[in-house]
């Protein structure tokens, strides 16, 4: 079996990207495989190619509907039409259609909450599954930055489905997350294939400032002087709106993006960013997954994220085309307090857990119990999951542990901004990696974060003009 030949014939590529070949060979030998590949390194090829080469259904568990739809669309675009997605947004009619036509489907995407529904489990476990793919597998770990309790139920499904070969995919996993993935997915003697997270074309900068207002001033100057496309990550919707307004007044072509915006506007903004009609997006962490823009030159964080893993993921959206790009983190002294508050607010404390358990015991719904106990929606899902499988005492212990862990994660970010160690070396060390080579433009600590190459005033100026309506319609269609 000539893999390169298959790659060329089926996908038209001459070469594998780093890491892909090892993963594909491992899967073809029906080994459980954990692949830790940086974002933008073509994770989906790792199941698409072996899926095409083997009989049977490739079942892909994916955490976000938007992500799922994106992947379905991209598989369709390359001409593979035997693909479908099942999530809670489908009508029962559409779902039935997929069930009836399942023998025609090669790649089936499914959300974790759907897969653990009894009717779905019953249906799926009878199918010939060639590969069970768990995308964004770090979501299974409570140590990951994006824990989704629904993922924990996958283990049961895997057992019922007769232990098909598993391919767990993620961009970031430290040793503990890695151990969790292997444990909860019941992987046996897995091959762990880890591609370095190092991104030599990224230059890291930590910019310490005196006050919050200085951040705004700094961003104003930065965006006027340097080029995009770029993303500014902020901590709240309010900040996104305010900052965007200030920057627009400076003449910068920028728009804000967060979950509170109308869906129509969100799509339009993404489109404008992709076409280059706007140079910058000022966003909460709602922006990014499923956005394919390779030429992002800058990612600036107005506020530190809650963990190094999140930072690597978000900053890593810059420079996917391999060209030089810049990742800047702004920092003022009391930032960690704010982030600590945001991070801990989803974790209920002891009285809240007691209250929640008591409400549930008295027959209240999850939603109203959470509301009465003052627990956030995310928090309530986590508590509910643990209460189902652990004693109240153990749940409390788990939460104490989680709190402690989140604090530890935050400390990584605090160390990142405060310590005088090479930023690249620090980021890699959180994932138990050592830096292989030091690029010429490494980081602000090394003193080599030279931005002169970024200088340009092209982000300025409104390239958009309101047209007469007749003219606009003709522009679109004639």
């Amino acid at each position, binding site marked *: 079996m000539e893999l390169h030949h298959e790659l060329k014939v089926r996908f038209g590529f001459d070469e594998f990207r780093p890491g892909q070949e090892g993963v594909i060979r491992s899967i073809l030998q029906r080994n459980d495989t954990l692949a830790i590949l940086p974002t933008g390194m073509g994770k989906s090829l790792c199941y698409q190619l072996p899926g095409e080469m083997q009989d049977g259904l490739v079942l892909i568990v994916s955490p976000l*509907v*938007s992500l799922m*739809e994106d992947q379905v*669309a991209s598989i369709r*675009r390359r001409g593979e039409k035997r693909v479908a997605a099942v999530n809670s*947004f*489908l009508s029962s009619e*559409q779902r039935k259609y997929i069930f009836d036509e399942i023998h025609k489907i090669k790649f089936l995407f499914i959300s974790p909450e759907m897969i653990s529904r009894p009717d779905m489990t019953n249906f799926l476990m009878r199918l010939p599954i060639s590969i069970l793919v768990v995308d964004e597998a770090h979501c299974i770990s409570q140590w990951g930055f994006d824990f989704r309790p629904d993922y924990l139920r996958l283990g049961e499904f895997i057992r019922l489905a007769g232990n098909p070969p598993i391919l767990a995919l993620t961009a970031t996993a430290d040793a503990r997350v890695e151990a969790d993935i292997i444990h909860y997915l019941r992987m046996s003697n897995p091959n762990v294939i880890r591609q370095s997270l190092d991104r030599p074309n990224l230059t890291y900068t930590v910019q310490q400032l005196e006050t919050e207002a200085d951040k705004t001033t700094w961003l104003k100057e930065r965006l006027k002087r340097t080029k995009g496309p770029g993303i500014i990550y902020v901590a709240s919707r309010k900040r996104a709106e305010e900052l965007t307004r200030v920057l*627009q007044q400076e003449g910068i072509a920028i*728009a804000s993006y967060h979950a509170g915006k*109308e*869906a*129509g*506007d969100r*799509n*339009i*903004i*993404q*489109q*404008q960013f*992709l*076409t280059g*009609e706007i140079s910058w997006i000022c966003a909460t962490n709602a922006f990014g997954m499923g956005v394919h823009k390779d030429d992002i030159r800058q990612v600036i964080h107005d506020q530190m994220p809650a963990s190094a893993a999140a930072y690597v993921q978000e900053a890593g959206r810059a420079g996917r085309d391999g060209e030089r790009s810049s990742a800047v983190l702004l920092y003022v002294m009391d930032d960690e307090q704010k982030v600590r508050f945001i991070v801990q607010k989803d974790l209920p404390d002891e009285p809240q857990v007691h209250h929640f358990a008591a409400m549930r015991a008295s027959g209240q719904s999850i939603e109203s119990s959470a509301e009465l106990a003052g627990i956030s929606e995310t928090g309530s899902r986590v508590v509910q999951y643990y209460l189902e499988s652990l004693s109240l005492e153990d749940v409390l212990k788990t939460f104490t542990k989680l709190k402690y862990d989140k604090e530890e994660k935050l400390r990584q970010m605090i160390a990142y901004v405060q310590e005088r160690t090479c930023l690249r070396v620090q980021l890699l060390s959180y994932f138990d990696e050592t830096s292989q080579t030091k690029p010429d433009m490494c980081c602000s600590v090394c003193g080599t974060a030279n931005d002169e190459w970024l200088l340009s005033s092209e982000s300025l100026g409104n390239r*958009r003009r*309101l*047209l*007469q*309506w*007749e003219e*606009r*319609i*003709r*522009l*679109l*269609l*004639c």
Partner: protein
Amino acid sequence: MKLSSIILKIAEKMDGQRSLNASLHVLRGKRSGQTLQDIDYFSVKPYFSLLPKLADETFAEAVSSLQHEGLIKESEGIVTVTEKGKRTEKELRVFHFDGWNYRGREGIFYLRLVLLVQTLSQLRESRNSFHPITNDRKIQQFVKGLLRSLTGSIHNSASNLADELLLAFEMTGISDLQASILSHRLTGADASGWTWEQLEEATSEPVASLQLEYLEALHRLIAVSESEDVAEKLPILHKLAHGIRIETPLTDSTAITKRLFDQGVSIEEIASTRRLKVNTIEDHISEIAANDRDFPILRFVNREDQLAVKMEVENNDVKRLRLLKDKFPHLSYFQLRLILSTMKGEHV
């Protein structure tokens, strides 16, 4: 266009008879017997369910601006329109909403249109791979089906759609501003749509006002497109408008109640079979009454009572339920509501 102007129009219709909340319920499209009867009785159906997500604060803000300008007054929970208010209302232009028949479904029409324009615009540039402006599967399937039904080249279809839009915009009688909003919310190959904020900046009209203009324009565009007379002149738009208008004005739950009611089942029995409160079933019955000219009101009220209430309403112009209840203490609110609902039919 201001929200306060719409509220003033509704208040003028319900002058001295209803509370502010009644207007809010109309705008949000509340499906209670009371509201369903109100919209019919006061002829404010066009505003029904116009803004299903209208926030309390937004409504309160608009109301307080009306009060501040001395256009409406509120006492003992009842809203009256002042003389100045009446003059102002007369000077307002006529609005062409059709909330009752579209109830928020205009958004589906618009998404279909946007995706179709985007697809044709991309295809005519020979770009077969692009990010669809909506991920909604139903919309995508609809547009795919529509594209398959188009004959001729992509270039032809695109320019046909352009011609249809140009013609339809003229036929609707919408303003230049409205045509401009509709056309700039569309997305093409190299010209993305405009966000509301961008439109606000370009037109100096606040977002809220633009969204109301857009809503009205969309209602008018659908009305033109769905008409059978234009099926030949506007074939693509006609297809896009398919299934947007609400076919059965009754809510799903009411429709179930109606089936049982038509079989002669009593309200109490319906309530116990359906495990719903009697109140709820009464709301359903009021909704049925408001939509059915031949409603068998005699099952609930005898002729004498009907006549007496009708006289009172017509002679003394009293439509407030509480006042009527004072006059006719032996009748229930439910009975009074039914009488009011069926009265409207007789006048037509």
